[in-house]
């Protein structure tokens, strides 16, 4: 089998899976183990780039992974949205691997081999989600992702980690099995297929009432999207080591959730149907509420990672909001937010990890004056914050813009208030972190004198911060890339 679209699609799963298989074998030799991770990351990225290009040319590579019976076929089909998701997950895997090296060694974490292994598995699952050709495939990889990240969340293994892990697993499994699966079955029942198709599957097979019910099932069933009542797993998952939080809870897991949400709206219901349903409107409002409420909660958190977690909840709801507004521009905003938020938030998490590695501090109030000792880290944090807030010229400003456009296009201009309020709240809870590091006098200057920053916890956040900046200028390309999957209209 020569290298071609199909092979590349296979490799999408095989490369990380192979890495996951090889890493335990190299468990005794950390350097080899990490080299494997990095090489696999590079190979995967190259592969993804090839596929992204291919998809950009209008091709939709497709393979039948496992010939199940009928609707249960596990098959992969890459389309632009998935290509984008695969691209960010694979690219950030590399950066995060570098960071992981610095973090894990810097903190002398135990069970590092297990850690790398499960990260590789999680990446494989994320790739599967990205390329899922139908709801069943999506569901399969979705569950795989949940399970493979569970050991990562509970990596520390103490009572707190287990409790967090239990909530993590409990909520994600309960929602996916309890709501998502019935929704998929309902979809299959009504549409007769679960294969994704641009414009939706139902073709008028269901009325808005049934569609509303299904949409609600999906929205809450996709627990990874952390819409407000089912968001509790996310803060609890923050017991994980920071690289996990960074990669999985800024990129892979949560983005898998919102990616699924977007896919469901785009390919299962079709934006038209969503915008006609009452549930769509309700969910849009709920997402708006999530955005604001999570921001307010974030404001109250002194623990840096908890604050970031709630910030993530808030930011993810942007995507849900975009999906539920279902106007072309709003969907585009959602798609962009997946990319931009990933780069922004991973920066923040890595900075939090870098700070923890250097000084073992976790609370925002302990960071006074630290910025002067760790200018690069805090600088990166500042840039990441600005991107999350949505300040130009950083990537994060585009999705907000698109969402506003979409909301107004859809005649839901009032929702803009939530976006505006959220921007302000973002300033209020993110900016102080970096700024007090630079401005406020140090709490304990003596302790700060002997800070050791491993190089590999400093460089990755700087890279991603730069990425968040650079992406601002490439938003147009991403938008053009995504345009084929969106309905015509809007911008």
């Amino acid at each position, binding site marked *: 089998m020569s290298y071609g679209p199909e092979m590349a699609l296979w490799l999408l799963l095989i490369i990380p899976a192979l890495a996951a298989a090889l890493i335990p074998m190299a468990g005794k030799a950390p350097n080899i183990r990490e080299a494997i991770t990095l090489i696999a990351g590079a190979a995967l990225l190259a592969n993804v780039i090839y596929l992204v290009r291919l998809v950009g040319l209008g091709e939709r590579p497709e393979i039948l992974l496992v010939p199940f019976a009928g609707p249960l076929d596990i098959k992969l089909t890459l389309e632009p949205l998935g290509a984008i998701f695969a691209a960010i997950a694979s690219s950030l895997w590399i950066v995060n691997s570098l960071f992981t090296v610095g973090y894990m060694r810097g903190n002398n974490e135990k069970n590092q081999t297990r850690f790398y292994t499960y990260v590789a598995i999680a990446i494989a699952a994320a790739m599967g989600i990205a390329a899922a050709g139908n709801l069943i495939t999506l569901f399969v990889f979705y569950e795989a992702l949940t399970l493979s990240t569970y050991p990562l969340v509970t990596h520390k293994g103490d009572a707190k980690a287990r409790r967090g892990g239990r909530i993590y697993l409990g909520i994600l499994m309960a929602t996916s099995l309890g709501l998502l699966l019935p929704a998929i079955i309902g979809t299959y029942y009504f549409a007769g297929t679960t294969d994704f198709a641009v414009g939706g599957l139902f073709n008028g097979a269901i009325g808005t009432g049934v569609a509303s019910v299904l949409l609600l099932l999906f929205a809450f069933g996709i627990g990874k999207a952390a819409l407000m009542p089912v968001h509790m797993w996310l803060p609890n998952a923050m017991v994980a080591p920071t690289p996990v939080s960074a990669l999985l809870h800024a990129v892979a897991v949560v983005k898998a959730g919102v990616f699924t949400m977007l896919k469901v709206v785009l390919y299962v219901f079709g934006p038209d149907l969503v915008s006609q349903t009452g549930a769509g409107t309700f969910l849009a409002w709920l997402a708006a509420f999530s955005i604001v409420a999570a921001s307010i909660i974030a404001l*109250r958190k002194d623990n840096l990672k908890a604050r970031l977690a709630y910030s993530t909840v808030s930011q993810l709801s942007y995507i849900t909001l975009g999906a539920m507004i279902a106007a072309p521009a709003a969907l585009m905003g959602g798609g962009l937010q997946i990319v931009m938020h990933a780069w922004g938030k991973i920066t923040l998490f890595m900075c939090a990890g870098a700070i923890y590695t250097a000084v073992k501090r976790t609370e925002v109030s302990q960071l006074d004056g630290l910025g002067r000792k760790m200018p690069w880290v805090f600088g990166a944090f500042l840039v990441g914050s*600005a991107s999350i*807030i*949505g*300040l*130009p*010229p950083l990537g994060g*400003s*585009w999705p*907000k*813009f698109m969402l*506003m*456009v979409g909301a*107004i*296009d859809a005649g839901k*201009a009032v929702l*803009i208030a939530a*976006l*505006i309020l959220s*921007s*302000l709240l973002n*300033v*209020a809870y993110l*900016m*102080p972190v970096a*700024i*007090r590091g*630079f*401005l*406020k*006098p140090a709490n304990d200057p003596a302790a700060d004198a002997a800070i050791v920053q491993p190089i590999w916890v400093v460089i990755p956040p700087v890279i991603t911060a730069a990425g968040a900046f650079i992406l601002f200028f490439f*938003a*147009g390309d991403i*938008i*053009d890339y995504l*345009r084929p999957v969106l309905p015509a209209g809007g*911008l």
Partner: protein
Amino acid sequence: MSDLLMTINPGLFIIAAGMLCALVPLHSVRKTVMILAPIVAAYALFKGYSAGIGLAGEMTIAGIDLTTYRLDRLSLIWGYVFCFAGLLNGIFAFHEKAHISDASALIYTGAGLGAVMAGDLLTLFLFWELTAVSSVFLVWAGGPRAYAAGLRYLGMHVLSGVLLLAGAIMYQNYSGTFFFDGNEIGLGVPGGWLMMIGIGIKAGFPLLHTWIQDAYPKASVTGTVVLATFSTKMAIYALARGFAGEEILIYIGAVMTLFPVFFAVIENDLRKVLAYSLNNQLGFMVCGIGVGTAMAMNGVAGQVVLHVIFKALLFMSMGAVLHRVGTAKASELGGLFRTMPWTTMACLIGAASIAAFPMFAAFVTKAMIIAAVFEEHHYIVYLCLLFASAGVMEHSGIKVPYFAFFSHDSGKRPKEAPWNMLLAMGLASLFCIVLAWPWGGYQMLYNLMPMPEIAGEYVPYTVNHVITQLQLLFAAMFAFALLKRLGVYPPERRAQILDFDWLWRRPAVATLKWIDVMGARVEAYGGLTVKRGWSGIQRRLFAMFSPAGAMSQDAPSGIASVLTAAMLGLAIALLYFVG
């Protein structure tokens, strides 16, 4: 200069220079860049305008048509003055070895320039937010005490930006374009109000003004000078471009001219006094825009030019004081003219300019605005403006120089300001006088104005005008002297003067804290309730299903067989009734 370069928004040059500054570690290189960049940009503007570039830099990003560069008479005047302000800052801050400040000041300058050169609302928004992002570092350059003020500043500006954006998008949704043109935009279009409020935040509309007095006095010495120039003038430009002739602006402007006067008189921090005075001056401009006649717009444009210069001059002088003494509080100062004569001179010129003494800067333009208001028969507003003029005389014209440099001797003997500051002040002073010089001076300003031919119709230096203006000012000075002599002039006391921001710094924060506390309580209580409920459920479940529970004790076979029989009965009954 190639045609291509000419079609690039010159703000980008300065931004690029700013980024260069951020990267270059060499002090001297940075400073050179800081001085050269505005000159280059001004040259680009000049060449571009000479070449007749109207709209340029069109591009399409993500399906949105952008016009990144618009060079017409209205934007040109703002462009020149922004370049000049950048230059002034370059000189004034020459001594300062601050990496971040240099870069952010330049980027801020560039963003301001870019904003006024923006041809569409989206470009405007981008630069608009960029000014916020870059300028906040200048505030924070003021040190730890500027921390919170900087955050508030940033919050306000982000709010301003997103409101503008939201309005712009609504406007786009309505009109199909982001093109920024006053003929089509106004309060009547969807999003018009949002845009105006967004702009109004930056322009310091009443109730939305507090960030100015909050952040500027806390910014660094050099930062304040830059800050005072761009954000607010950019907003004035946006108003002039988009909302000229909206009547409500007249009244907003009138209120803006009035209320700062009262605050300024009781404020102790002289830089804060200047911030209030800035607000008051903006009121004149807003008022002029509200009138919207050609004369008014000319007056506004001219006022902007001059205001940038004299306000910079005043802030520079206060900056020099702060730089040398370490405080700018009136109660701590006094008698500084003994050691800082040149600074004193500059401050006096600035004071005279802002108070609109004949032959000094604001005399011409302020009169134009007032006359325009008068001609449109807004007599009450006219009186307000006159009242405000007297007020200006009070706080900027007399209070600032008097308490800083004269008054009683504080015993402080600071050194004269560094040469570069003096140079910058001198330059500004020169322009303050030149641009109001009756013989050939103010005509230069007229030539810059949006409608020079109409501007020419207004002759400022009539005997009557000069006399009445002098009369007003002397009357004010007389009142000052009299009140001082009678001892009813309020002494300068250190205090925190409440402003509207009290609303969100005190009750709002208190409410938030209350919500926080209540939230914590509710959380605790709710958590406890949930915990209790959950453990209750668990206990019940446990009592039912655990090995010790009712359901799963090892049932004796007798019970099980009874169950079996019961099942049989059930089955038979079912079949009996169904079959």
